[in-house]
């Protein structure tokens, strides 16, 4: 009787274990072989620690930039979309707000007449790579921005290509958790942060920008940084 009871319990446990294993297997297959991801990028950027140039600039954040969504079908990795548009105002308000003493958002370049210049950032190219495609452990993002600066009359002063890169290892996420969404989100944030850092430190050192700054900086200018 006792043996029979124990045998019943053993069979019962084994059945439950098999069901659990099957469930985990099915879930893993769904996670591992899923058809891509829709990634909504969220977060904030720290305020750059730089000395602002004493000029008043206009900033155009057009619809193409603030609604930018990258979509791509990757072989063996499905349909991917990365929505970075809503992050662009956060990035450029934070970086340009630290680079210049006064920044006014304007709808068009022409609306910036009377200001020292107008900045127009845009996304030129966006590329992603995922582990299922590259067979390494990384989610990678490349963003090629073009930062255009126009003078008060609307003539271009410089069009500066700025390539940013970000990557995240899937090992940073738990083995039972799908790394696709958080991995791509983190890699995209790293790329945008890279763009912000490079923009803040390198854009003011461009010869065309330096000439423009010398012409427009107020006499009590503290000097550029870096």
């Amino acid at each position, binding site marked *: 009787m006792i043996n029979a009871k124990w045998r019943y319990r053993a069979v019962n446990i084994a059945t439950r274990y098999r069901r659990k294993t099957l469930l985990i297997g099915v879930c893993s297959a769904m996670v591992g072989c899923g058809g891509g991801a829709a990634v909504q990028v969220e977060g904030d950027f720290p305020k750059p*620690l730089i000395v602002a140039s004493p000029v008043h600039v206009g900033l155009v954040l057009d619809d193409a930039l603030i609604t930018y969504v990258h979509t791509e079908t990757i072989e063996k990795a499905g349909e991917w979309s990365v929505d970075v548009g809503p992050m662009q105002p956060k990035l450029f308000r934070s970086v340009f707000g630290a680079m210049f003493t006064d920044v006014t958002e304007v709808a068009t370049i022409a609306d910036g007449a009377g200001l020292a210049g107008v900045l127009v950032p845009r996304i030129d190219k966006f590329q992603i790579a995922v582990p299922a495609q590259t067979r390494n452990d990384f989610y990678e993002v490349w963003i090629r921005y073009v930062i255009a600066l126009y003078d008060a009359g609307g003539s271009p002063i410089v069009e500066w290509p700025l390539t940013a890169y970000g990557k995240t290892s899937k090992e940073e996420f738990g083995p039972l958790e799908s790394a696709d969404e958080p991995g791509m989100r983190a890699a995209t944030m790293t790329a945008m942060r890279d763009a912000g850092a490079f923009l803040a430190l390198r854009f003011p050192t461009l010869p065309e920008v330096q000439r423009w700054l010398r012409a427009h900086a107020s006499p009590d200018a503290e000097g550029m940084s*870096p």
Partner: protein
Amino acid sequence: MRVAIFALVTAGLTSGCVTTTIQEMREADTGIEDGESVVVLGRHHKGGQDIESGFVDCVSNNLNGGRNKLGVIREDEFVDAMFPWFEPRTAPLTTTDLPEIIGHPMLSERLGEIGVRYVVWVEGATHRTDQGGSLACSAGPTGAACFGFLSWEDDSSYEAAVWDIKQGAQVGRVSSDAVGTSFMPAVIVPVPFIARVQNTACSTLADQLKRFITNDS
């Protein structure tokens, strides 16, 4: 008590052997005062090999714990506070760039606010250097069983460069190289004997860094 002994015996039985080599090169005197802290940063520059973020956290936690613990600022907090100067593409690669950073009034003021005295740059990685054996498992209506033997060797090699913000110079380097073999024999049930190679490299590196920074030989 019995539970503690069992846990110790189990840990001893189920861990492989790890051999660690620590090296230290001192270039200047060190010391740390109350209110001063250390930040451990991983090297992530383009072209270089990325360090595992878990290893940086591990070294930070070990420096901030145990005997003679040091004040430690988290890597992400420091990088945010110093944005955009310590990003992968903009961080100083050598101490020749350090005077520019600490000579900048805004940055020097921020460094003073957060109280960082030492920046420890860690680079390195853990690699699987060897593996062999085979293991087969099968399951049937009466149960499951595994037979075989697996073994693998990991090598964790990390180096830390210590920069003194006060002196504006590198004050030394500490390296930790740990090699260990893990194995898993299986006669019906696989029993893993895992060598915690990376963890050993982390704790030995952190211990040596503590001694190096506090000048405690």
